[in-house]
């Protein structure tokens, strides 16, 4: 089937012959390629190392030890014990994080500001709130692994350093998000209580908390699940639990044990994810 020839259009306005965005595109493409090169140099990015014969042999030997996965009863019992310990570290860490976060949230939230009831917040309270926020930022920014390293030096190996590291970092995270949740909710009830003379704590318990309890709990449960993953990572620097056993097995090239522990870890995280999602759904 042939198309009829195109009819001549109206008196033609001259079409532009160049794409005006072309130069900009070429520039950005070139700039990104130019930037990529030093990145690859700095990270010693040499993918061919992976397939060098010597490395391949070591990798192959290690991978070969993965199967069969270790499944002796004592090993499985140890894995179960360490998994419980991981969950315990996460739970204890989260509890302490709550203890840290709640007072800091109360100190930093604008909704409980008495001076802001009648116009702008006064200078003193404003800077106090900013300082508390700064503290929360510092707590959040230091990776928990670094805290764990420091605490291992102070209190020795074991779960205490893990619990403290999680407590500090997650305290910062919880404090920040709690503050955001409290401020984004409806503050009318709370402000009315403050206006009528109740204290800040009263206003919190009778106004802010009931309103936002579901969201706060939901986020805390979600963070608890993240804490379980963190506590496995912290085990690599001596905080005990599944991570520490995994580190030991990896150093000794016992692939079967690593495989079992990885599988248990993935299952544990999936279970925690399920529990957390279920809890969050029933909270509404």
């Amino acid at each position, binding site marked *: 089937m042939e198309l009829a020839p195109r009819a001549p259009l109206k008196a033609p306005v001259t079409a532009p012959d160049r794409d005006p965005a072309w130069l900009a595109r070429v520039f950005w493409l070139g700039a990104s390629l130019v930037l990529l090169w030093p990145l690859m140099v700095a990270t010693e990015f040499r993918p061919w190392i992976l397939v060098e014969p010597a490395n391949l042999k070591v*990798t192959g030997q290690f991978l070969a030890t993965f199967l069969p996965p270790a499944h002796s009863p004592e090993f499985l019992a140890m894995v179960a014990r360490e998994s419980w*310990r991981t969950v315990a570290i996460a739970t204890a860490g989260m509890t302490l994080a709550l203890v840290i976060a709640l007072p800091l949230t109360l100190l930093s939230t604008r909704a409980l500001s008495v001076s802001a009831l009648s116009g702008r917040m006064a200078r003193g309270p404003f800077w106090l709130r900013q300082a508390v926020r700064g503290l929360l930022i510092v707590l959040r920014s230091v990776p928990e692994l670094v805290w764990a390293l420091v605490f291992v030096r102070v209190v020795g190996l074991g779960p205490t350093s893990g619990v403290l590291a999680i407590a500090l970092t997650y305290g910062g995270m919880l404090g920040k998000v709690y503050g955001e949740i409290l401020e984004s909710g409806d503050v009318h009830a709370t402000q009315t209580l403050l206006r009528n003379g109740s204290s800040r704590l009263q206003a919190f318990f009778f106004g802010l908390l009931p309103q936002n309890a579901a969201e706060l709990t939901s986020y805390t449960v979600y963070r608890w699940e993240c804490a379980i993953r963190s506590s496995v990572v912290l085990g690599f620097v001596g905080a005990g639990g599944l991570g520490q056993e995994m580190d030991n097995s990896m150093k000794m090239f016992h692939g079967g044990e690593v495989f079992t522990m990885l599988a248990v870890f993935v299952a544990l995280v999936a279970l925690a994810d399920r529990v957390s999602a279920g809890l969050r759904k029933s909270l509404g």
Partner: protein
Amino acid sequence: MDRSPAANPPYRLPPPLFNARCRACWFSAALALLVVASFWSLNLQWAQFLSLDAARSMGRFGAEFFPPDTSPEFLRKVAVGTWETLAMSALGTVLAAAGGLLLALPASRLHADDSAPGRGATRLLLNALRAIPELVWAGLLLIAAGLGPFSGTLALALHTTGVLGRLFAEALENAPPGPAAALRAQGVRKTAVFLYATLPQVLPQLLSYTLYRWENNIRAAAVLGVVGAGGLGQLLSFHMGLFHMGKTATVLGAMLLLVAAVDALSYGARRWMTR
């Protein structure tokens, strides 16, 4: 007997604190049990931590951090470590964005009649990549790729591919279907439909996810060095092992600055993109 209602009806008692029929009660009870069991089974060294002795030794320990070592040669080493960490996080994130996009295509059902073979398998792969933390990947890759930032980059790339792949697949599935449907009605091949209709719509969101993930990856890259993957983490664990607290303080300061800088860059880039 006079059955008229009493002038003052009796007060109702408040509901009991724990009612066997109330699910929330059981939940709170289970939670309390979990918390108590955690603290009890861990056998934490409270005495060691909270005693006056411990406070004093912690104070001494804290004092060793100051003054931080700011000698020029050490600062140069820290600068090199910072650059290495930054490069690890950036390259790892870029590789993960590419890998994530490639894997997101089979992992998403782009339209109602898309048979999407391999969706289940790809999603499983992405979940597996995501579930294993970066540090564990780094530990495994050290065996294959040796010490140094290469394994760190690969570890970040693998884990982040799982994360971004899943996010990208969901973004692709939620893209408005109109433009793609019109091109499909014209019989355009699948790849061209994706490039001309689906990708232009989701690209800003994909870039936003990638930049947001970079903020996380800079923190992860900073600590991967602790297992030997180079960068600031390796410097940190080296000097902490030798109890050079002044140098450790400098490295910690550099880490904080780097994290803050990347956070600001990422936020600024995301703002610029949605102008």
